[in-house]
């Protein structure tokens, strides 16, 4: 199934004109378009976070001129990071690029729809940036009613429009993936020969398709109440504010899994490759992805334990939240077991993946405290929640995204990056991250509420620590941007398979030819053909991999 070496083959990066990018229907190019756009959004959201952390260095408001400015910052940070970075991150960049390559297809099922999805994200993103420039919005990314519908004097409707439009990008991408995975697998690529990354994205796509419409409905109703004063959520108009929370979290809790499931998929590719061992318990990991997608739809009420919902509803949602933790625990144990008796090398992608496992484990276990309804009464809406979900979304999803980018960079660019700088960045991110967010667990249990512009003086030490960590984290994020771009100065040198990985995507050239494979491969085995024996011999060949 390895591609035959041909003298000259045009790779997908060969055309340079702007038009060839903006009108491309090549899934690989669209992946790169997404990568460029979400990198921009990531640094916009990151800039907002930076200013917030500076403001929080002191208990009194001083960096920013008013609490309104702070409220707008955390709102734009949340909206941009969630809807314009995390949700598209791994699915739209790596998923787009890799799914056809991994299943032995020439493209996604609907290439034009795929391009349209990117344009939709761009339209939504432009509106979001417009909102940021022309005054901002101060509702928090959660748009809680009736504040958002009847009280906020900011650009709620434009922001809701941005979220509404962007949702369709997500729905169409999910649809595209589902159809592609069902119908375009190469001969012999059975469901249980699919890489676990594909399983994870399949589960993610289900959530995108089924959950996103509910979010669209929720924000559309916010706009209706705000513009037309139809009583939906505001009790003064005869509405129910809790209804909004149900609709919002019905999407937004599963959305957490949209952000982290793909990361789990990335880790399941990296760990076997750098341990030279087949993944431990393939089927259980595959099924646990689907279990997370299904159970993830049944736990939204754990965001509402103190909202005024009934005590019994609270207990049921608490129970279901503990159940959804189990498939995640299975994955962590299986990844760890994969390393047993392996032949392990700690290259940059592996460092990121191991960082993911550690931070995701901490994020998940602190989630248990939030799922325990008796504790949640105290810690709900405090910094403990902030710390918890950043461990999942930044420690988890962003680490996995960076790990994936480093792992597949040779494939998508044809180049290797400086391994030394790569390791340095992984380490910097890990240390900076922990220093930023660990103090927030302590702050949360002490009782510091989230979304606070000013706070009592006794919380200052921990806040200063957190801000110090954020400055290290920022370095860790800028570093890869620099050396990855820098690697493009040289001609492609990575070779088709620098990591000696066994997935189908590594059986074609780097960068891949326009149509991915010269001949559609016939698949005769599973995705993780690794063995620790003879791994050192591979190193001899692979040393050019680490310039």
């Amino acid at each position: 199934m390895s591609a035959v070496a041909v003298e000259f083959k045009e790779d997908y990066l060969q055309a340079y004109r702007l038009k060839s990018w903006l009108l491309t229907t090549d899934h690989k190019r669209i992946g790169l378009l997404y990568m460029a756009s979400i990198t921009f959004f990531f640094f916009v959201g990151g800039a907002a976070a930076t200013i917030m952390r500076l403001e929080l260095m002191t208990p009194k408001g001083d960096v920013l001129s008013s609490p309104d400015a702070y409220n707008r910052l955390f709102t734009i940070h949340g909206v941009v990071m969630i809807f314009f970075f995390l949700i598209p991150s791994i699915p739209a960049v790596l998923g787009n690029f890799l799914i056809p390559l991994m299943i032995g297809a020439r493209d996604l099922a609907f290439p034009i729809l795929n391009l349209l999805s990117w344009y939709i994200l761009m339209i939504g993103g432009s509106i979001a940036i417009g909102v940021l420039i022309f005054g901002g919005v101060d509702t928090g990314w959660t748009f809680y009613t009736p504040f958002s519908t009847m009280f906020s004097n900011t650009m709620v409707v434009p922001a809701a429009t941005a979220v509404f439009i962007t949702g369709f990008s997500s729905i169409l991408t999910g649809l595209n993936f589902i159809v592609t995975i069902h119908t375009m697998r190469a001969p012999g690529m059975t469901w249980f020969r699919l890489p676990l990354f594909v399983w994870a994205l399949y589960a993610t796509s289900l959530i995108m398709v089924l959950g996103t419409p509910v979010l669209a409905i929720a924000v559309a109703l916010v706009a209706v109440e705000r513009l037309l004063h139809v009583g939906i959520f505001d009790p003064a108009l005869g509405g129910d504010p809790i209804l909004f929370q149900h609709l919002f979290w019905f999407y937004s809790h599963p959305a957490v899994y949209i952000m982290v499931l793909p990361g789990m998929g990335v880790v399941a590719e990296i760990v076997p490759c750098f341990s030279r061992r087949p993944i431990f318990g393939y089927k259980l990991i595959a099924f646990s992805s689907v279990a997370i997608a299904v159970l993830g739809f049944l736990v939204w009420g754990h965001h509402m334990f103190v909202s005024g919902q009934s005590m019994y509803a609270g207990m049921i949602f608490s129970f279901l939240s503990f159940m959804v933790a189990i498939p995640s625990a299975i994955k962590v144990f299986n990844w760890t077991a994969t390393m047993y008796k392996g032949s392990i090398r700690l290259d940059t992608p592996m460092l990121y993946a191991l960082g993911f496992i550690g931070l995701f484990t901490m994020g998940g276990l602190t989630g248990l405290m939030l799922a325990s309804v008796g504790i949640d009464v105290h810690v709900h809406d405090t910094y403990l929640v902030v710390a918890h979900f950043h461990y999942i979304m930044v420690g988890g999803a962003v680490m996995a995204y960076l790990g994936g980018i480093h792992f597949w960079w040779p494939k998508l660019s044809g180049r290797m990056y400086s391994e030394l700088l790569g390791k340095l960045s992984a380490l910097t991110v890990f240390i900076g991250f922990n220093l930023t967010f660990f103090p927030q667990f302590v702050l949360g249990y002490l009782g510091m509420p989230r979304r606070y512009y000013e706070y009592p003086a006794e919380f200052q030490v921990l806040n200063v620590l957190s801000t110090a960590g954020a400055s290290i984290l920022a370095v860790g994020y800028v570093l890869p941007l620099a050396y990855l771009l820098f690697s493009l100065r040289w001609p492609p040198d990575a070779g088709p398979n620098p990591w000696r990985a066994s997935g189908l995507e590594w059986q074609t050239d780097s960068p891949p030819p326009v149509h991915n494979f010269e001949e559609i491969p016939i698949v005769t085995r599973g995705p993780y053909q690794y063995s620790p024996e003879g791994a050192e011999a591979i190193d001899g060949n692979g040393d050019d991999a680490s310039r």
Partner: protein
Amino acid sequence: MWNFSLFPDQASTIAKHVDALYFFELGIAGFFTAMICVLILAFAARYRRKSTVDRSNPPPSSKTLEIIWIGGPLLLGLTMFTWGAILFYKMYDPPADALEVYVVGKQWMWHAQHSEGRAEINELHVPLGRPIKLTMTSQDVIHSFFIPAFRMKQDVLPGRYTTMWFEPAKIGRYHLFCAEYCGTNHSAMGGWVYVMEPVEFQQWLSQAGTGASMAEQGERLFVQYHCAGCHRGSQTVHAPRLEGVYGRPVPVQQGKEVRFTLADYRYIRDSILRPKSEVVAGYEPVMPSFEGQITEPDLLKIIAYIKSIGAKEATQ
């Protein structure tokens, strides 16, 4: 800045129970985090590419192991769930003898009203060793009444009443926060809770103010808003009498059916603001709506008055 703590005061009776479960879960979190980290580091060291260790016959999967790591987390999860749910149950139902305080949240302040008549802003004075029940509502957006030292929090919603209760266990002054983002000055919406010796609390209650209890103030409003004109017996308007109505089932006309509904805070509030929605069987829907005319604190006083005439009736 250097005056800082790492753990909150335990100033209510429930606090130590919450902390016990918290430490249990912290222990579990610490144990599993340490286990995973140690395993990863140990494997990465022992099975590093260059080492010559035994790597023969690693299992591709293992039913036994997988059953252990499904069953283990399941058992621990069920333990944590049950413990947390029991705790929540205790937090939910106030004891019958609780002292009642009424709280109204609005952008960006807390208004607390004691039954004896004294009201306060951004402060709450409570006696040591007595269960306190708060009945809360909001005049505008959603707020959340949060006292970290008591480990208690409850969202405060416009248009309905939520309750929470606690029993202060330690004399002192504790932070009161708004925990649900509510707009510009969200972070300034808070103040202090003072736990006092019961004797001092009684003195505090009787200081200042008009001396009129909440129910007495409510009666004045009852007359002022012309409720009394019809509900105390009128020659021209046929309106239900309100003595003894609080806490009893009321027959409500629903189309052709009559159904009973409990005359609680919600029902009385809705009957004042939206009188046509639940009309008592046998009466005409003639009462005008008072929506937007009575403030939330005044509504609470009127309900307190209606409640008090129920109590008088019952003792007769």
